[in-house]
């Protein structure tokens, strides 16, 4: 009898924590489900509940869901609360509130982001840039890039502009010559062929010129392919030829490389072009091998 009691007690000791964990997981899952369901609730019904969650000692995960619902509530009080949380919260919750401000796109809340950026650390600033990216506010990002003397900050802003495809704003930053490398990359990400072609034709800074030539390959397309083949043909230096070849490799323009191979009468260049076709895993290599074997027969 004593053994049975001991065994039962042991079972209870093992089972009780497992039951508590299962219950706690269920409660957490249910809370998240309840918050997500509130997205379809009348705003004036959802807001007080979300407010209470944000003031509670719930986990950051729960509060982050609450912030998303808050961003979707089209009431001035909701947007004011979101802006306040973005300003006063700390850590992940603050970053999330900032990002959610971008999702809401509310004009007043968005206006508050510049002050948060000014006083925030690097992580806060990244979250603000992300919010601007989400809200497609390229002017605000441009202002950050134009105002800063800090290279890291400039780079982060320019990268964001590139991701936004903010061609106009990036062009306005072209006079920041000390930051050309970052700008070239951003032009490529933004798909600004025109700016890259201008820089590729400008020999005043050979390093930037070479970067622009190979970055053209990132944009790709028939116009870029033609430009890269032309740059290779008319190159005044080996470096320019290499940059053009690299651009063609990035663009996957093996037809252009093959065309240049056929045109070239320079054995060293021919070898280089053939090697590039191999690197590109181009089927043209097999055509060339077949043609060479046919010639030998």
């Amino acid at each position, binding site marked *: 009898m004593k053994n049975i009691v001991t065994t039962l007690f042991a079972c209870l000791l093992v089972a009780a924590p497992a039951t508590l964990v299962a219950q706690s997981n269920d*409660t957490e899952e*249910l809370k998240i489900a*309840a918050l997500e369901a*509130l997205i*379809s609730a*009348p705003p004036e*019904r*959802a807001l007080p*509940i979300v407010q209470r969650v944000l003031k509670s000692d719930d986990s950051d995960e*729960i509060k982050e869901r609450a912030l998303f619902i808050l961003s979707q509530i089209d009431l001035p009080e909701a947007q004011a609360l979101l802006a306040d949380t973005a300003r006063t919260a700390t850590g992940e919750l603050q970053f999330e509130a900032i990002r959610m401000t971008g999702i809401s796109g509310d004009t007043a809340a968005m206006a508050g982001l510049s002050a948060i950026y000014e006083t925030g650390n690097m992580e806060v600033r990244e979250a603000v840039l992300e919010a601007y990216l989400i809200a497609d506010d390229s002017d605000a990002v441009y202002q950050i890039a134009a105002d800063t003397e800090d290279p890291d900050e400039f780079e982060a802003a320019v990268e964001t502009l590139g991701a936004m495809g903010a061609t106009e704003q990036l062009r306005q930053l072209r006079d920041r010559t000390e930051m050309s490398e970052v700008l070239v990359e951003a032009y490529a990400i933004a798909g600004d062929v025109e700016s890259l072609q201008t820089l590729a034709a400008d020999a005043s800074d050979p390093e930037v010129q070479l970067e622009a030539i190979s970055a053209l390959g990132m944009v790709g397309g028939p116009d870029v392919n033609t430009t890269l083949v032309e740059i290779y043909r008319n190159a005044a230096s080996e470096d320019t030829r290499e940059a053009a070849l690299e651009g063609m490799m990035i663009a996957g323009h093996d037809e252009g490389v093959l065309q240049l191979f056929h045109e070239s009468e320079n054995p060293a260049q021919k070898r280089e072009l053939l090697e590039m076709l191999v690197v590109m895993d181009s089927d043209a290599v097999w055509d060339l091998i077949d043609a060479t074997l046919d010639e030998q027969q």
Partner: protein
Amino acid sequence: MTSFASRLPRLVVLSALFVAVVASESRAAALDDALGEGWNAWRVAADMIRTTRCCYSWSIGQPTMQACDLDRRTAVSVVQDNTAPDHGEMQLYALIESGRATRILALSPQCPVSTMSGISDLGLLESGTSLDWLHGYVTRDDRLSEDSLAAIAAHSGSVNALIGIVENRSLPMGIREQALFWMAQSDYDEAFDFFTSILARN
């Protein structure tokens, strides 16, 4: 004697619960008996909250009501309709095959339907009977459970039934989530008190 007295309130609650469960099961069984093979229809009091449930054709975001073909699985939509009343009736359709429901649809009374077979009309039923019967089909994360849940949500005073589904930990979370989704669209204080209570749990 003292021991019995202390247990009395618990016994009363248990007895009440037992009676409620038995009553609910007997109401569901009574409806089961009344349903014949093929399509059946009945009406219940419903909270439509300025919406119409029907099949629609959509053109440039504008819906045009069209007949729901019961022989096909035409998609049912809930459309905002400011001319519709907050409270009214809903028409339920259930296809019974080999004694079990295989399809359940909740539509607005004005929504036309078509079928090659006949429809057996049971007329207006008491909401509780209909709710108890539908509850029996909310068992797993599948289409039939989803459709039953949507039908339950449209019944007048369905909040308690939905709360029961949310609180039933033996049901899949997906179904409990859907019950919350339907509750959020209701306009009952009890529904939002329940949301508050869930979110206050530790």
